[in-house]
């Protein structure tokens, strides 16, 4: 049956809906008939108007009814809730405080994660910007991932591929000396870029013209903070800066400093075409090249584009040119490498969390995000379970109230609503408290995390909505059990004081306790494992003496005067030795090596370090066989190798018989004159790889100076004075090796510190919860305890009775947690080549810790219960 067109559905529906007389009284049908009669008599328009009038007349009264009644009940419920919170202050404190701690942890991590995920999203075209990455096969079968592309690739793509709208290369030129008048600094973050840089990225310009700022070959853009170093408050536009004491550049623009969440962090921009890294030829397809960013046509498919780029890049890289080496074997190797290469496009916004270079696919930022989110979620989970558990326990005390409400006619719906509402209100209070704690502890968290997080980043609508949703969810989850179970019970039974908590409820409560303490135990074990691993690494013998060593970077042409500097230094009594190394931690590149008596086609990558005489002596590295480099042998300079113990292993020889064998790596050839004991030349956690050192004083990048112990400040002054005599125009820089060593552990130490704080909080929250729960149990068993005491039970016996139950569950929690903790932490340790074993006593200690907290919290309540006067407890009926 169909309604005639034009019948005022909405009005009728509203009338039916709000009148509340709906089907019971046939009002809907009556209204319909009334409308039709009117329509037949006076026309549809009149009838419709009449209907609307009726609705309009009925609505205010109805709304008033709803508001008045729900308002009255709301006020009542609210008052009851507040009274309840107030009446049980201690309990409320535990409940709200515990949840607030958990929420605070979660908020901090949320801040962290939002900061990490906000990287590079501020660019207007962020979604169509990509960084090109090259994936290459290595001679020993693994693949290596690099983000530097041949220099001519960017321009070639722009010319030949319609999808590529724009491009810019960006190469960080290490340490250029900038000078303006008497102000000279090494700028470590000078980026050589293309004019496209200012078009595809949205870094705002404070001074200068975006379109032309990079047009001149001698243009220079400075960030505000870099400009302030040279020009103070004066307008730098049009001023000149001298770069490397050789070229004058004109400041054509001033940029705002890149925001902290930019993965491109530059201090100055110079044009790629005119200022490139020394010894680089930017027209060569064979050079290592630079990071290259492209802007694709909107909505073009990145995978398709990447495939096209791969084809183009391979074709051009394989074209014969004078850059190819003459050795035919080397040519074959290079060609094979190019054939196996592929180019991929990494979206700009994913670089921070998913980008990686090198052979393993690790991304430290994402690892930190995953670790910390996991930890914070565990703490939040513990706090939520706690909240639920206490809310459930407490609600039993309200059984009488519920019974009475039911007796006087409360509907089940309103009882459920009341309990859920109360739980949400409590959770809301915890949320407010958590926000207060967040504001209070943000500075400390920034110190701990090494970030500069600001509250402003999260004070927006999605955050507020998300926060409200979480609070609502926690409140509902915590309230749902008491709301549903208690409201369904028969009032007569409750009012008579029958059993309010069945076995099911106790089981639930115990399960929650087990989960809480289990999670705490996992965190405690994790904390112990991380602390021990860091400690282990810190005390690993490095294989060389790291104390009293400084290294001095030889930058911007100072390397040519290394000899003079060394000679001057050696005249200082407080300088014990001087040598040279490749960059920090001796990491050079690895190359395929060949040697005398090499069997089969084994290809082996060997680290390659250009050093100076006195290398072994200054660094105090032990010798396993042979001799150190010596000036007495003419061929030692550039035609002899010192290798570490891994190289003889690779050759299948022992150290002594490796000495004298001919060795060839990266175009250098000569005999092995000595075998050094293994020393950690890379990250301490990494496995020590084979290393070959030879003397090449033209490639010196760092001078390493050993100072006399006990006179460090004076010795440092001597070194500085030497530097001034040799390099009057270059600033003196130095770093202590042991400081750098400490810096290696900073990321792991941060994880360790956060783990300590969070594990502590988790245990505290779980303990708080148990404290509340024990208080509740003791209260419920007041009469039982009274009877026991009257019958002659001792205080000790009662304490035992009350505590043992909980202790049992805490122990069970630990036993369940141990395998989980073991698995998780062995996974974490797998990335270290040298690991501290996971000791059994760590588990025992975690268990003992949990037990102590449990005993303290339960024992206190048990003791109080056992001291109570039985007369009073038995009389209270």
């Amino acid at each position, binding site marked *: 049956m169909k309604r005639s067109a034009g019948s005022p559905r909405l009005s009728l529906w509203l009338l039916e809906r709000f009148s509340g*007389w709906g089907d*019971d009284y*046939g009002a809907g*049908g009556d*209204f*319909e008939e*009334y409308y039709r009669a009117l329509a037949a008599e006076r026309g549809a328009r009149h009838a419709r108007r009449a209907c609307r009038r009726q609705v309009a*007349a*009925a609505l205010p009264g109805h709304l008033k009814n709803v508001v008045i009644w729900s308002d009255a009940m709301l006020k009542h419920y609210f008052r009851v809730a507040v009274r309840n919170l107030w009446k049980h202050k201690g309990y409320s404190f535990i409940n709200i405080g515990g949840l607030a701690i958990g929420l605070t942890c979660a908020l901090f991590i949320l801040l962290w994660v939002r900061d990490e995920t906000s990287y590079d999203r501020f660019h207007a075209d962020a979604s169509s910007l990509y960084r090109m990455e090259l994936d290459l096969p290595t001679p020993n079968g693994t693949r290596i991932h690099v983000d530097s592309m041949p220099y001519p690739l960017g321009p070639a793509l722009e010319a030949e591929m319609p999808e590529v709208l724009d491009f810019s290369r960006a190469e960080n030129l290490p340490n250029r000396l900038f000078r303006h008048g008497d102000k000279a600094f090494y700028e470590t973050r000078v980026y050589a870029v293309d004019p496209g840089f200012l078009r595809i990225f949205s870094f705002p310009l404070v001074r200068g013209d975006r379109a032309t700022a990079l047009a001149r070959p001698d243009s220079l853009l400075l960030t505000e903070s870099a400009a302030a170093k040279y020009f103070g408050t004066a307008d730098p536009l049009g001023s000149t800066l001298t770069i490397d004491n050789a070229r004058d550049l004109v400041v054509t623009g001033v940029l705002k400093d890149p925001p902290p969440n930019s993965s491109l962090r530059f201090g100055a921009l110079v044009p790629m075409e005119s200022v490139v890294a020394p010894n680089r030829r930017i027209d060569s397809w064979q050079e290592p090249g630079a990071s290259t960013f492209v802007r694709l046509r909107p909505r073009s498919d990145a995978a398709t584009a990447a495939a096209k780029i791969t084809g183009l890049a391979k074709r051009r890289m394989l074209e014969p040119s004078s850059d190819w080496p003459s050795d035919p074997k080397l040519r074959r190797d290079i060609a094979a490498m190019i054939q196996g290469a592929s180019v991929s496009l990494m979206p700009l916004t994913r670089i921070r969390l998913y980008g990686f270079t090198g052979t393993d696919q690790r991304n430290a930022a994402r690892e930190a995000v995953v670790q910390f989110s996991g930890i914070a979620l565990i703490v939040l989970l513990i706090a939520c379970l706690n909240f639920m558990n206490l809310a459930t326990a407490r609600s039993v005390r309200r059984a009488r109230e519920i019974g009475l409400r039911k007796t006087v006619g409360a509907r089940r719906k309103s009882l459920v609503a009341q309990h859920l509402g109360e739980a949400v209100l409590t959770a809301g209070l915890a949320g407010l408290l958590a926000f207060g704690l967040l504001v209070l502890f943000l500075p400390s968290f920034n110190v701990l995390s090494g970030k500069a997080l600001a509250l402003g980043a999260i004070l927006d609508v999605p955050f507020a909505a998300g926060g409200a949703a979480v609070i609502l969810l926690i409140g509902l989850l915590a309230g749902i059990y008491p709301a549903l179970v208690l409201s369904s019970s028969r009032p007569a039974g409750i009012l008579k004081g029958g059993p309010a908590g069945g076995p099911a409820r106790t089981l639930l409560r115990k399960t929650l306790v087990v989960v809480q303490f289990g999670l705490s135990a996992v965190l405690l074990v994790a904390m112990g494992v991380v602390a021990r691993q860091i400690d282990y690494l810190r005390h690993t013998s490095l294989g060389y003496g790291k104390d009293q060593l400084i290294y001095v970077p030889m930058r911007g042409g100072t390397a040519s005067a290394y000899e003079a500097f060394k000679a001057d230094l050696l005249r200082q009594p407080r300088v014990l030795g001087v040598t040279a190394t490749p960059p920090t931690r001796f990491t050079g590149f690895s190359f395929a090596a060949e040697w005398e008596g090499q069997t089969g086609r084994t290809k082996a990558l060997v680290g390659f370090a250009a050093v100076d005489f006195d290398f072994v002596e200054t660094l105090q590295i032990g010798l396993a066989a042979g001799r150190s480099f010596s000036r007495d042998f003419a061929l030692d300079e550039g035609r002899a190798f010192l290798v570490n113990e891994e190289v003889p292993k690779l050759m299948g020889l022992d150290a002594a018989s490796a000495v004298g064998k001919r060795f060839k790596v990266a175009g250098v050839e000569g005999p092995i004159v000595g075998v050094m004991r293994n020393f950690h030349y890379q990250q301490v956690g990494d496995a020590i790889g084979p290393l070959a050192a030879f003397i090449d004083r033209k490639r010196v990048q760092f001078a390493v100076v050993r100072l006399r112990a006990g006179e460090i400040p004076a010795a440092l002054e001597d070194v500085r004075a030497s530097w001034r005599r040799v390099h009057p125009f270059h600033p003196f820089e130095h770093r202590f090796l042991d400081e750098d060593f400490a810096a290696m552990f900073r990321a792991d130490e941060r994880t360790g510190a956060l783990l300590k704080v969070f594990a502590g909080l988790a245990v505290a929250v779980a303990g708080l919860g148990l404290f509340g729960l024990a208080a509740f149990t003791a209260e419920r068993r007041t009469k039982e305890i009274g009877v026991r005491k009257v019958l002659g039970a001792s205080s000790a016996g009662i304490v035992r009775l009350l505590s043992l139950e909980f202790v049992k569950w805490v122990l069970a929690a630990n036993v369940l947690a141990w395998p989980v903790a073991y698995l998780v932490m062995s996974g974490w340790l797998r990335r270290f080549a040298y690991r501290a074993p996971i000791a059994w006593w760590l588990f025992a200690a975690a268990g003992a810790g949990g037990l102590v907290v449990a005993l303290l919290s339960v024992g206190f309540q048990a003791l109080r219960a056992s001291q109570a006067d039985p007369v009073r407890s038995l009389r209270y009926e």
Partner: protein
Amino acid sequence: MRLLTRMEEIVLVSIWRLGGNAYGITIREEVAKATGEEFPLGAVYPFLSRLQKGGYVITSTSQATAERGGRHKILYRLTDTGKSALAEVQEVNRRAWDGIPARAFRKPA
């Protein structure tokens, strides 16, 4: 037994008058006829509800018809309680008005 209110009385009488055809619309018309005033349709339901709860009327469901948009009609009928309540009101009225001439409250012409 509790005495009916004036409106309950009028609604109850209307239901009796309508015999087997007493439902929302017709009851409203009868009430309007009796009081001489336009009576909002929605206003009869509270009285019907109260009378039903008091046991004065019972309801039955009629066939659904097209003119009601495919919905049932709820028909009202007096119960014995309803009838005796009306009888009582009638008796009370009679006693209360006994001996008062109809012109007693007319305005002087």
